[in-house]
């Protein structure tokens, strides 16, 4: 009996130790990097983070802006395109024939230049990855999948129970996964339902109007307007925004209407609207009502009084 207790204590302790040592270590790897990136560049879109640490894809919550990703496919053609553009650029008076040789000489640096601006620029991800050097990428991916599910499902008691199981049974891994997956599956639908019904009630609540007014007031101060544009280019712009509890942008904002930036002056109306919404963050809104303002659909309408 006593011996059993001792063994049990030792085993429990060692399991706890293992859990403490191994679990946070594995878990925080991606999360740490993401956090650090977000700290360094608060406005960084998840897509950008993804591009820099693609191996952490599963750890990144990406409410996506499809346009951003689409740009990636544009990279190759753009690189080629810059050179021809520059030649006509040469101020012609003196530069008619001469400019041709110089651009050729410069062509190597040129291409580098082109690569950088786009989100998927390669030098960038390399830099950010540095801290990770020790582990080769394939190893990381496996632990990640487990981590992601683990922390959510488990509490300390689970660990203990689990360990007893482990002692008894050698097929630990197999056992681990089923119990872990189960809880999140249940959790999510429950949350969803709750959210939906709450939201329905929220619309009845008086503070929806005050939240709208608060947002409107804040965005208006950041919005410089487009009164200089011709009337027909002063288009309405609809933007979807997701906010964190602290009022910061969760991700890049998403253009809803028009779906993409129009060519010509109307594109300026979109630029100005997007800039207003991005620049105004973090928003000051009552944290108690977070579920009501987590996702916001903003329409900026310049021509309405």
């Amino acid at each position, binding site marked *: 009996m006593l011996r059993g207790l001792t063994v049990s204590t030792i085993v429990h302790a060692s399991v706890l130790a293992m859990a403490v040592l191994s679990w946070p270590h594995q878990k925080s790897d991606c999360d740490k990097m993401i956090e650090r990136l977000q700290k360094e560049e608060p406005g960084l879109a998840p897509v950008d983070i993804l591009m820099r640490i693609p191996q952490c894809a599963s750890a990144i919550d990406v409410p996506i802006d499809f346009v951003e990703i689409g740009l990636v496919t544009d990279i190759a053609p753009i690189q080629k395109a810059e050179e021809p553009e520059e030649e006509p650029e040469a101020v012609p008076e003196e530069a008619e024939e001469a400019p041709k040789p110089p651009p050729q000489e410069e062509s190597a640096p040129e291409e580098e230049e082109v690569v950088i601006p786009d989100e998927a620029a390669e030098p960038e991800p390399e830099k950010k990855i540095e801290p990770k050097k020790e582990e080769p990428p394939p190893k990381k991916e496996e632990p990640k999948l487990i981590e992601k599910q683990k922390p959510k499902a488990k509490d300390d008691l689970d660990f203990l129970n689990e360990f007893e199981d482990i002692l008894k049974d050698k097929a630990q891994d197999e056992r681990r996964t089923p119990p872990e997956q189960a809880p999140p599956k249940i959790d999510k639908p429950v949350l969803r339902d709750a959210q939906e019904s709450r939201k329905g009630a929220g619309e009845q609540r008086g503070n929806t109007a005050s939240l709208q007014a608060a947002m409107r007031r804040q965005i208006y101060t950041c919005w410089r307007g487009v009164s200089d544009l011709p009337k027909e280019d002063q288009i309405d712009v609809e933007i979807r925004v997701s906010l964190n509890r602290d009022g910061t942008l969760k991700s890049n904002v998403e253009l809803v209407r028009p779906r993409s930036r129009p060519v010509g002056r109307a594109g300026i109306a979109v630029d100005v609207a997007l800039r207003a919404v991005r620049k105004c963050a973090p928003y000051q809104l009552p944290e108690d009502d977070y579920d009501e303002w987590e996702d*916001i659909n903003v329409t900026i309408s310049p021509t309405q009084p």
Partner: protein
Amino acid sequence: MTRLLFALVLALTTAVSFAPSASAELKVLVEGPGNFKPTPLAIPDLEVRGTNSDLARQIVEVVRADLESTGLFEMQNPASFIQKDLSIDVQPRFADWKIIKTDGLVVGAFEELPDGKIAVSFRMWDVYAGEVMRINGQPGRRLTTTPDNWRRIAHKIADSIYTRLTGEDPYFDTRIVYIAETGPKLNRVKRLAIMDSDGANQQYLTPGTNTVLTPRFSPSAQEITYMSYEGGRPRVYLFNIETGRQELLGNFPGMTFAPRFSRDGESVLMTQAEHGNSDLYIMNLQTRQSRRLTDHPAIDTSPSMSPDGRSVVFTSDRGGSPQLYVMNTDGSPRTCPSGGRDVACRITFNKGQYSTPVWSPRGDLVAFTKQLGGKFYIGVIGTDGTGERLLTEAYLDEGPDWSPNGRVIVYFRESRPGAGPQLWSVDLSGRNERRLQTQTEASDPAWSPLLQ
């Protein structure tokens, strides 16, 4: 390829996970004209790849000054910049630029090329979006020229930035001709002069032996038309900037004055006066054939053609006082906005006298000089006579002309009795009134088209 896959996977997963939250959105409608403020821009010094760092600094200073002169941008103080290790090859640290609340960041590099030329490359970054701002679809630009032409590189960079941020056509890389005035009132020397749009590179084009007035730039060639007193009576001449050659335009009896090119540059409109009556003519520069536009006992003058060439706006006192009228270039009757049909329709009905109308390059507005109650104003009015707006007011404001993009008006001002004339500009909003510095007193400014 892997990236593409990632994109696909992400697109799918987010499409699914986001479906439910879409209905939970708080809807916010922001309406109104907005809260105009100049857009904050950071334009740090260029990265210098070579030895001539003075030139690199001067280029940036001209870019900043051009943009600031629009009143639409506010240049951030370089002392406030946090990131010092900028390079055109590396994405900037946006967080550093958000702290100083700059909307746009321009990063550039200056190079001295082996053949003695200079090159400036630059990129624009949208700080809040965290992405490059494409210029004509390109993520950056590079311009080359000889070192003595450096100001044009600066103007072209400023033009690119201005166009990208406002959607307006460029106008910094242009010139302005004007009349440089020197000497005492009774023995005034009036010479034709030219300068860059920012007042740099001022030079005289005529020696001043004959008084020259009302120069107008050709929209298509390096030519100016003006009125000169050469030979004792005022007549309209054509002047080639490159050759310095002057040529009498037409062989009219009496005087010719108030010339202005048609928008295609192929004709010159002018006023011809004989026996105390003046009427409008148009002369084709190729054929040198002229055609009479108006035949009226009143004084008709200051013709300016619409960009489509179909209409002409001019000043006439046929209604009793100088007012603006619009007619068809072919002389056919038109339906007047004020009702009825006439060969010429009056478009100004408010109090005051209107003169020197100039049709905007965009076609929708006419700029004018207005005189009312001992004051002068520069204003604009719709071509149908609606929406009159006065942009300036002074003891004497006169002689407006449009920037080639139709956003800015240049004119001359005498701020009080006896004060010499100065050149000024104002933007269409009327917010941004500025003096253009000239070495001498100056009048009758006219804007060139964008340089090629």
